[in-house]
């Protein structure tokens, strides 16, 4: 008990006015702004797929891009909330990526069903995963770096969601850059690795966000 009083007095003496952390929504908006700029620059450098105007008239492609954007936004907001001890008392918003991923899964199943006759498989395979991951490295690094300044009490999930957010930037870039419509290829080399990266994010969260 004496130790506790001593500690309290010591902590009280140590206290200086601290700058409160920004609101998580503001924080996520900042991350999204950076990621969007990064995506635009990358697309400007690598080039959009030549048939992009044609593809933007296809509902399934538009829905896929819209849901990838949705995943990017919801995971960014969720990662920002998960960086705070009490999720900023917005638990439902923090878990919103679950709904977004469920919708995305439905869309993929629907697209798989609609892929008749199947679109030809591209000649490459793992290069797509590698490309997405390389593209996601920078957003992942700055998100983790930003999250370390706060105090996540759900560091596993925070890490996983941050990785998924970064991966969605990479996935968006590749879908808008590469001419490829094989759903099998997309599932195998674009979206299944996303799950693996999400799992790796659990470990990364423990390693880098534990405080």
């Amino acid at each position, binding site marked *: 008990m004496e130790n506790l009083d001593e500690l309290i007095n010591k902590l009280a003496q140590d206290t200086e006015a601290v700058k409160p952390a920004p609101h998580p929504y503001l924080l996520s908006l900042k991350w999204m702004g950076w990621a969007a700029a990064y995506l635009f620059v990358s697309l400007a450098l690598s080039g959009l797929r030549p048939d992009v105007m044609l593809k933007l008239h296809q509902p399934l492609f538009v829905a896929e891009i819209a849901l990838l954007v949705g995943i990017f936004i919801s995971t960014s907001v969720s990662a920002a909330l998960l960086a705070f001890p009490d999720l900023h008392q917005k638990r439902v918003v923090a878990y919103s990526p679950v709904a977004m991923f469920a919708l995305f899964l439905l869309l993929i199943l629907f697209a798989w069903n609609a892929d008749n006759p199947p679109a030809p498989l591209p000649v490459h395979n793992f290069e797509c995963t590698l490309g997405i991951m390389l593209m996601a490295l920078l957003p992942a690094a700055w998100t983790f770096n930003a999250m370390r300044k706060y*105090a996540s009490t759900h560091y596993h999930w925070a890490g996983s969601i941050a990785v998924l957010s970064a991966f969605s930037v990479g996935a968006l870039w590749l879908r808008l850059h590469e001419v490829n419509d094989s759903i099998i290829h997309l599932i195998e080399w674009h979206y299944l690795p996303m799950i693996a990266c999400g799992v790796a994010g659990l470990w990364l969260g423990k390693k880098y966000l534990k405080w």
Partner: protein
Amino acid sequence: MRQSLDGDQRAYAELLRETSRFLRPFLAKRLSFTNEVDDLLQEILLSIHKARHTYDGNRPYKPWAYAIAKFRLQDYLRAHYADQLHHAEDYDELEESLQEPVTETDFSYESISGEVQKLPEKQAIILQLMHQDGYTAKEVAEKLGMNESAVKVAAHRAYKVLRSKLER
């Protein structure tokens, strides 16, 4: 909390006292020993201090403080059970080798003292006390403020390491 974020020391001390008052019963319900509660309470207050910039003055304080308390409690329990599991494994191994004398070995302490010095500090001290100075496990336990079985487990672990090194 808002006052303390602005640097008001008295308000901050009062807030931490109040926090420890409402967290103590929460921890006492979940932990068996008073010293565990005190230790964890101190750790939680340190965490609250470290994370105070993440508190939003427009929101209730208690859910934020409880979130940190639960987080530290889970961490503590995880470490506690992992430690117990580790000890349980050691006891299993110890039981298996009960036929082997725990405090008697085939080699003299002097011949392996070089290897003993490379062991973790506690294990090295235990072996030194038992084999060079001739203390029993019980006496070593009293000397080091450990319980007897922990001393035997540590000695057993040290023997295993030494045996594998000497057999190479």
